[in-house]
């Protein structure tokens, strides 16, 4: 089966090739095979496959990758709109809390 992909042209993933050192950490941690390394530089080979988990940005020593992190969960979005904050996995409270921290890591 080919790779399952969600909507086109929507993710917030950004790669700054100039500061990329080609260490390939982004390609290692990405669970969706978004990155490819060619000529000692990372490149976004499959942008629409990105799920905005933030593993690449967390693990880029050069801070060359940025993405607005979140979980693609409609229930969580609905719960946060209804003001329900502690329904286990399906809540967005952690991202709100983590926003300050996320900024520090270039997210």
């Amino acid at each position, binding site marked *: 089966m080919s790779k399952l992909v969600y909507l086109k042209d929507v993710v917030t993933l950004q790669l700054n090739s100039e500061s990329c050192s080609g260490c390939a950490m982004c390609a*290692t941690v990405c669970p969706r095979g978004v990155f490819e390394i060619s000529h000692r530089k990372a490149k976004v080979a499959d942008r629409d496959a990105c799920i905005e988990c933030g593993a690449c940005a967390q693990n880029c020593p050069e801070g060359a990758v940025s993405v607005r992190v979140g979980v693609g969960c409609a229930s969580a979005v609905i719960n946060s709109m209804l003001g329900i904050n502690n329904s286990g996995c399906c809540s967005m409270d*952690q991202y709100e809390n983590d926003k300050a921290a996320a900024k520090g890591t270039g997210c």
Partner: protein
Amino acid sequence: MRYKIDPGLYALGAPDADSPVLISASFKMSFDLLREALPARNAWVLVLDTDGINVWCAAGKGTFGTEELAGRIESCGLSRVVKHRKIIVPQLGAPGISAHEIQKLTGFKVAYGPIRASDLPDFIDSGLKARPGMREKTFTTGERLSLVPVEIVHAFKNFLMVLPLVFLLGGFSGQGMFVANALRFGGATALGLLMAIAAGCLVTPLLLPWLPGRAFSIKGLWPGITFGVLFLVLRNIVSALPAASTLESAAWMLLIPAISAYLAMNFTGCSTFTSLSGVKKEMRWAVPAQIAAVVLGAMLWITSVFI
């Protein structure tokens, strides 16, 4: 049942100062999968305090995080337990861990292990190298099916809440006795709602890769339409009711696809390939459309009851 295990350093088999160190979460199932994947092997397992949450979700929340990992390495005295300076962190923990920060803070070099614990022996034996396929998250039919029961239970809770209303309105339908009507018409209506749940929570996840459309709401529409038609046929056969009026048929062809689309949309959180930006984009048009269809469908259905 307790799903939480105590954080700290555990020994698998009889590890020594050269044995590999594996990082895990304080969710019992994460720890058990890890143990089962490494039978008859000697290794250290450092369990982080993730409050009983699995690695992936805890990494997203930040509890499976750089600070916790560095602190746990320190408090367990890992540098005195092993001679080497390498730790194997599950790849799905990477959204919470900054490998270069860990090295700076603790001196330990992070090697990201495979996504599936079952690939660990191969990964360790090949000198901490992942083979192709070990790093990509799949979403097989079996994996999708395993999520179906939870989805159905969630939907069922809402179903049980509207059930009294369904039987009450059913009682006002038709010509006969209230109770007999409530059972006949209410029963048929309950069947319709159950079929909507089956379309959204069972058929959609099962056929997910092959359903047309990228948005989950669109994917859920097709089983919804199919089950809507199927219901209108079944309703007359099973309940021996007179054929649905045009008004009632129209109501069901709005309600079942809309409910199915809504439930399918909620499967985004279970899936392994959606992003928050994408879900928000989908919801901007899908939620108003679903609400409009359900409100209109319910109005048509109630009108058909009292006509």
